[in-house]
């Protein structure tokens, strides 16, 4: 980490804050909306995960569990990234979660979705890019300098 240039470090921290902010707010917005459920999104699922999505939506108990884990997972990952607390596990978990979102509704040729789409996408969309950004953040950590992980590392030493 000491080998980052000042500019590189700044860029990585800014990226971490931006992605963290986005994920944290996605979680909080779901928490604040008591009617929110992932059923609408999962109903759209068409590719390799559509069987999984059907299983979740056809079972009220599992759907509730998925909604709960999704909301609090997003909040935990978002907080981890913004505060720099357990930032690497947060980034890895975030990359996996966001990639699952992508796999449910990838913009592939022949797959049509009824949900409104943001922008024009072919194979690559902003969700996939966010998953890739999270991989970068996992591989280029900054939280031991700009983050609460500093204190964790200090205690471990």
């Amino acid at each position: 980490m000491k080998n980052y240039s000042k500019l590189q470090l700044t860029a990585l921290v800014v990226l971490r804050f931006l992605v963290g902010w986005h994920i944290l707010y996605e979680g909080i917005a779901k928490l604040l909306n008591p009617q929110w459920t992932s059923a609408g999104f999962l109903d759209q699922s068409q590719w390799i995960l559509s069987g999984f999505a059907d299983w979740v939506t056809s079972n009220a108990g599992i759907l509730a569990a998925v909604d709960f884990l999704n909301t609090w997972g997003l909040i935990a990952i978002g907080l981890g990234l913004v505060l720099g607390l357990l930032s690497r596990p947060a980034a890895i978990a975030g990359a996996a979660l966001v990639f699952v979102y992508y796999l449910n509704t990838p913009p592939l040729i022949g797959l049509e979705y009824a949900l409104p789409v943001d922008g024009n996408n072919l194979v690559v969309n902003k969700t996939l890019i966010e998953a890739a950004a999270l991989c970068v953040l996992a591989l280029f950590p900054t939280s031991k300098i700009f983050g609460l992980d500093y204190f964790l590392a200090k205690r471990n030493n």
Partner: protein
Amino acid sequence: MNAKVDRKDENSSSNKNMEKEQGNGMQRRTVLKALAGLPVAGFLGFEILKKKNYDGYKREAVLKELGLDSIEFPQADYGKKSSSGDLIKVGFIGFGTRARQLSQALGFMHPDDVKSRQQNNTLAGWLQQEYLNVAITGICDVFDLHAEKGLATAKNEIRPGGPDAPKLPVKRYHSYQEMLADKDIDAVIIATPDHHHAHIATEAARAGKHVYCEKSPSLHEDELNELYTTVKNSNVVYQLGHQITQSVVFQQAKEIIKRNILGKITLIETTSNRNSANGAWIRHLDAHGNPKPGDEKSIDWKQWLGNAPYAPFSVDRFYSWTKWFDYDHGMIGQLFTHEFDAVNQLLHIGIPKSVSSSGGIYYWKDNREMPDSLHCVFEYPNHDLTLLYSGNLASSRSRGRVFMGHDASMELGSNAVITADRGSTRYARGIQSGAIDPSSPMISFNPGAGQIDAVSSASEKYYASRGLTTTTINGRAVDVTHLHVREWLNCIRNGGTPSANIEMAFQEGIACIMAHKSYVEKRAVEWDDKLKKIV
């Protein structure tokens, strides 16, 4: 780029060689750096609070503009009190597909349905349905197979109320007269083909049995008059089978109409949109294309025909009876009845002054009499409005049910979506100031929340228009047919008049008979309000 990651972090404790003062400064700076995320999180929290205030203000502004800020919906008493009063003993007359659904609404399910519900995990939800303190003690069907299904349903002990519910013997009756003569039956549910509805309901009322009758109320004007007079002069509770107005959304739509949010309504458009053989009432074949069970040995065909003209037995007629005018009014009887009831419950427009219908058999060119494309125009000059009905059985393009007012329109389905009109007088200022956007829904109801949403985000609008929500009471999805039979039973126990009472049934029956007559006679048909007669 030399950006290789060094996992072993460096911290200030390794800077022992530095001067003390400098070390303290470094330490402070390092700690401050480590806390850099806190202001970011704080800023996000601040922005979230700001957004919540803004959304709340926006919602209030729209609702205030509409005078809906003080709206209060009566809290549903559903499931909150245990069923009081005596057990009501119910007999089913006719036990086909609809009766199977009605018995589930009463709290009884056939063992086969229990099994399939177990498999798709919906049994538990049904078992939570309110126990209605009823027992099915009689089954009457002209078809042995259906009667046996009815008996198995009535005897099944897997039901709401559980093992504590009384277990009474169930009797099969071979004619409805036999059932009506039995003193042990308190009330009957009539779910036969439509040509039996009126005369069975009339005789049931004469025998002092409460009546829940599927639509349509009657196919003939004289029968309808007789039914009306008989029920009016009796103490029985008559409820016509129209469950959709039991939805929470309808209570909310009522409030919208009462508060004149839409302005003067001059046009209502109702539709049916189907595109399948089953939807076109071709129902005598199973999934493999073979005729469904039943022959003259197991079906009492003479009784099935009843007052209808003689026709030789056929499996086609027995299952797909809707196709012939002797047994039904086609789309008018099966689908428009629901539309009429929805509109009449909201606006109380009653019997139209005139009706003209047109249409034809354009797609399903089999042995049917009923048109598969049908359009009826109902004129209400005394209410200054036209009610349109357009039904089609060869295209399922969704056309909805829309109330068009000068100030706003309301699309009423599984939820209500209200959109301000560009040319509205009432909302002109709101539209000009930008508070109201006529190009997207102004308000919608969320039955799940039981409250009004001023629609805001794109995805919310999307779901509002799709109506992905279900009718929910106290956070639980509830079958509307269950609510409709529950209302009927409550009126039997505590007095009162159910929503689809005999007055509503009479108005609906007349409107439907007029529409059918107009189609058959190819002329406009009028209602003479003085003579109380169709002319």
